[in-house]
């Protein structure tokens, strides 16, 4: 029951929906248990390309086999509580940019996709949810239980460099 920040600084390679996402090119979250709920409250992307690059970043659900066997985050990527006194959850959300079984962004037409496209040459994008209007995750199965921030080639994205964070709260 505490807000956490999942941060990554990396290249976001433009990739297709329903394709196996390359390690180190996406930010993904999977619930810690079958009944766990998580709210995604904020996303921030600050581009750090040195020439004009249009990226089609999207926050979306997953499809196919659920990601599994996650690789621990390595510096400068991080995931930590916003309040230092936060106690560790028994079943914490898994945040990762690499995994043995890799995530796939949903291509289901009726799945929500939050459009976070920007020019990563100097562009900054911040999305904040109002209370009760947050992006929600439930459990740890494909669809409801996995959220992915990635660069969608089908939406016009090109491979870009960016720093990004996702603020989330599990309960």
């Amino acid at each position, binding site marked *: 029951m505490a807000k956490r920040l999942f941060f990554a600084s990396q290249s976001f390679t433009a990739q297709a929906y329903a394709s196996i996402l390359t390690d180190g090119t996406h930010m993904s979250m999977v619930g810690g248990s*079958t*009944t766990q*709920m998580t709210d995604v409250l904020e996303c921030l992307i600050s*581009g750090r390309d040195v020439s*004009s690059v*249009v990226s*089609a970043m999207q*926050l979306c*659900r997953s499809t196919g086999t659920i990601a599994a066997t996650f690789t621990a985050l390595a510096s400068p990527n991080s995931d930590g509580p916003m309040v230092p006194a936060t106690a560790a959850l028994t079943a914490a959300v898994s945040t990762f940019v690499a995994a043995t079984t890799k995530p796939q962004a*949903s291509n*289901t*037409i*009726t*799945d*929500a*996709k*939050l*459009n*976070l*496209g*920007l*020019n990563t*040459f*100097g*562009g*900054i*994008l*911040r*999305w*904040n*949810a*109002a209370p*009760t*209007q*947050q*992006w*929600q*995750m*439930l*459990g740890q*199965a*494909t*669809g*409801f239980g996995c959220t992915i921030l990635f660069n969608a080639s089908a*939406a*016009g994205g090109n491979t870009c460099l960016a720093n990004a964070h996702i603020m989330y709260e599990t309960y």
Partner: protein
Amino acid sequence: MPFLKTSRDGELFLDHSASPGLPPGIAQRMDLPPELVGEGGRMHAATLGCPHCGGVVLLNPMRKRARANCFKCNAYICDGCAFVASQPDYLHRTFAEVAELVRSGKWTVSGPTCNPILTPVEK
């Protein structure tokens, strides 16, 4: 408690004030208003959560088409959920209701978030 219709709005802030921004063709392809996301542009747009699928939708300030409302939830719902809700075999269930069923331990959920499939847990 009284509230404004906009009090449920989240905010998306896209700052291209020091950037070439998005070319008009790309902006249109991304459903973003080209006049607000080009070179030097700053866009503030509202976002709303969908009570049916738990997703969030960016409200394009230039959209002319009507937005769907769920009269049972008294809230905006996303286009995907609006399509599913228009089907003859639709059963109204909010994300919170689905979550409650799953957390009871008697059901598991799968399928797309706009049209979830609830399966009873066998004991």
